[in-house]
């Protein structure tokens, strides 16, 4: 047989997810295993293909990582849950013998996960190599900025953004076009565009994934914004906790410089633009725009009273637009495809798509992008595949420490800014944490108050002292020390803090309490009146004991107990000394015979 030359061999692409989920599941090791397997086979057989490896950002379905695509011409096959040792089988059976390894192929849940999504930002996120600017250009990248530089005025750009109806994705939902317009009209020698990539909200990773998977869309969005408002310098304020996102962004900026997309006189026009990265130093409040400005200027990140708003008086006192990562990365797609296209997605007042980090007790956790107006229930049951272990759904938490919990009877609520606000939660930046029957709502409220209390910057009294008092009251509840009248006190304090705090942190900090009180009041009352935690989470309200009639004496609990509170001989019922027990629940978790009781 004639040896094939390199050029006329089949060209296969093996695409491996190296988003955060993919990396933690071993994405890099999987790539290495593919390379090694192919090299090993090369020695014995003359392969009739060449293989190109492509690293891609988050594909969304992190629960099934590592996800691997094998692309052969126009045929593409996706594998899930791939470990390095499976790579060898895929190389032999699929790449060499042409038979896909069926047991590792994606299954129905993969299709269900994608069925109701509408991917704009995330479409490119999982298919292009984020470390190669050319990959972004090949899918139409930088066409948006080229289009406006070759014939749109800043006002036309702003009108286009206004017409699209896009609202800020950082949480508040302020119309982006209106913000740009105000900044454009504000007097100032210099203007700035700032990308807010602080993403401090616990339970959220949308912005991280967009930057890791499609960094150039953010850069292009910032360029378009800069052109519209009349700025030539932008900053990306990004958390230091996201090292791989920072690296990708640095690389993307360097590549854009190299081919002249950033710098002086971009594409031969009069427009010049440069971009700097500022690393956050770990403070949630720095996501608030005035605090963020102070932090970029190198100071303590404390918010100040508004007005003046940043569009009038922002960075170094100059007019500044601050936009969220997701907002900015939508911009190139809007300019490329037109405002009418964007406005046709979603509802009248909430247009376009929204990215959510779907996590917690759902089966299909991951990153999703849905059209605005989709119902919460569709997200949790159709995309999310329902609750793990077929437990009862209890609530879905939206908006993190500024948001609230939405109960079962409101699962028909459409995801729009107005409808979600009605429930007492907020759309927020995109954290969506699903809770089941085993979650205690008082514990959840306390969890968020611990967070806001720790992150309160201390500048204004209502937030600094108020959140502390709220936390103390909740802490009493979880320890069985609640009193009559505490709930009323809690409510009054919440309402006072909401109206008197200086910035959004304090103004929204009571929301997790108010929304759980609204829908789960009886759970609070059980803690206070009966000293009982119905979900069996609050340690101090529980006692553990071994049910002798079920205990087989296997010794699992005895070995698991870190406090040595369990004694007993093999094959005889064990005993638990509650005076030593630290209520960690280890025995409960390991017992296979339901012989550990928890009350």
């Amino acid at each position, binding site marked *: 047989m004639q040896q094939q030359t390199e050029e006329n061999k089949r060209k296969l692409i093996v695409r491996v997810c190296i988003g*955060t*989920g993919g990396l933690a599941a071993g994405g890099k090791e999987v790539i290495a295993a593919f390379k090694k397997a192919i090299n090993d086979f090369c020695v014995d057989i003359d392969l009739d293909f060449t293989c190109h490896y492509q690293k891609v950002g988050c594909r969304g379905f992190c629960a099934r990582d590592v996800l691997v695509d094998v692309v052969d011409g126009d045929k593409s096959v996706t594998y899930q849950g791939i470990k390095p040792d499976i790579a060898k089988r895929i190389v032999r059976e699929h790449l060499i013998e042409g038979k896909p390894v069926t047991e590792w192929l994606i299954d129905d849940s993969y299709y269900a996960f994608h069925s109701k999504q509408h991917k704009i930002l995330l479409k490119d996120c999982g298919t292009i190599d984020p470390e190669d600017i050319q990959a972004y250009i090949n899918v139409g990248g930088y066409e948006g900025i080229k289009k406006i530089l070759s014939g749109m005025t800043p006002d036309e750009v702003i009108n286009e953004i206004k017409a699209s109806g896009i609202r800020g994705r950082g949480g508040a939902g302020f119309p982006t076009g209106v913000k740009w317009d105000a900044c454009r009209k504000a007097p100032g020698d210099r203007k700035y565009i700032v990308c807010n990539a602080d993403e401090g909200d616990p339970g959220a990773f949308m912005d991280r994934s967009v930057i890791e998977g499609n960094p150039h869309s953010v850069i292009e969005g910032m360029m378009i914004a800069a052109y519209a408002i009349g700025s030539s310098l932008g900053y990306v304020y990004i958390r230091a906790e996201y090292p791989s996102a920072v690296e990708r962004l640095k690389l993307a900026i360097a590549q854009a410089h190299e081919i002249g997309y950033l710098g002086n006189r971009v594409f031969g026009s009069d427009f010049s633009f440069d971009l700097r990265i500022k690393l956050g*130093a770990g403070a949630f409040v720095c996501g608030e725009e005035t605090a963020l400005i102070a932090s970029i200027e*190198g100071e303590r990140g404390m918010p100040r009273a508004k007005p003046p708003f940043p569009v009038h008086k922002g960075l170094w006192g100059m007019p500044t637009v601050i936009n969220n990562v997701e907002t900015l990365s939508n911009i190139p797609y809007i300019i490329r495809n037109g405002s009418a296209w964007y406005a046709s997605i979603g509802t009248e007042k909430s247009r376009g798509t929204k990215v959510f980090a779907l*996590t*917690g007790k759902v089966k299909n956790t991951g990153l999703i992008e849905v059209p605005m107006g989709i119902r919460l229930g569709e997200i949790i049951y159709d995309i999310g595949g329902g609750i793990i272990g077929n437990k009862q759904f209890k609530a879905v938490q939206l908006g993190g420490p500024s948001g609230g919990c939405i109960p079962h009877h409101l699962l028909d609520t459409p995801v729009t800014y107005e409808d979600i606000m009605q429930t007492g939660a907020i759309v927020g930046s995109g*954290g969506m944490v699903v809770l089941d029957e085993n979650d205690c709502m008082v514990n959840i409220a306390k969890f968020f108050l611990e967070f806001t209390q720790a992150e309160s910057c201390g500048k204004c009294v209502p937030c600094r002292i108020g959140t502390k008092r709220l936390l103390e009251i909740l802490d009493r509840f979880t320890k069985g020390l609640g009193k009559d009248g505490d709930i009323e006190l809690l409510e009054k304090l919440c309402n006072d803090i909401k109206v008197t705090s200086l910035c959004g942190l304090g103004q929204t900090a009571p929301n997790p309490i108010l929304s759980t009180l609204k829908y789960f009041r009886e759970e609070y009352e059980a803690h206070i009146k009966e000293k009982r935690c119905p979900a069996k989470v609050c340690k101090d309200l529980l006692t553990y004991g071994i049910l002798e009639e079920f205990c087989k004496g296997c010794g699992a609990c005895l070995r698991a107990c870190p406090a040595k509170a369990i004694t007993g001989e093999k094959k005889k019922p064990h005993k638990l000394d509650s005076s030593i027990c630290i209520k960690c629940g280890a025995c409960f978790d390991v017992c296979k015979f339901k012989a550990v009781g928890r009350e």
Partner: protein
Amino acid sequence: MKNTLDEIVRQYREKEGNVIFLLQETQEALGYIPEEAIYYFAEELAIPPSRFYGVVTFYSQFHLKPRGKNIVSVCCGTACHVKGGSKIADRVQKDLDVAVDGETTKDGLFTFEVVRCIGACSIAPVVLINNKAFAEMTADETSKIIKKMKKEESDAATN
């Protein structure tokens, strides 16, 4: 250390840096912010030391004490919390015999930290050991890894 600090001051002047820049560079180079560094910068750049302390204590990223050789961070963001992150944190604390978040073991080998979300929520609960993320962890598995690391450290010490 003086050379390092001089270099940071030089870059500060060149890049029109600020207090956060000085502190981030110092921590990057030395692993923490020694008191001498603050006074050195204060003197050299005529910035009151109080401004440095104000910034250092505001941001959780800065450390005024040296940190351990290995950093074990347990994520207690929302998704990790509801999937048992705090149980893991309790166990790590016990295994390392440290009392509070941010404490370093007496031998200087391990620092225990609780972090609020590293954005890996879909694979919760997550533990970061020396910046490598471990997905869907349990207290037992974390304990095993720490035991192994302790053994490696003591083997290395005796060799």
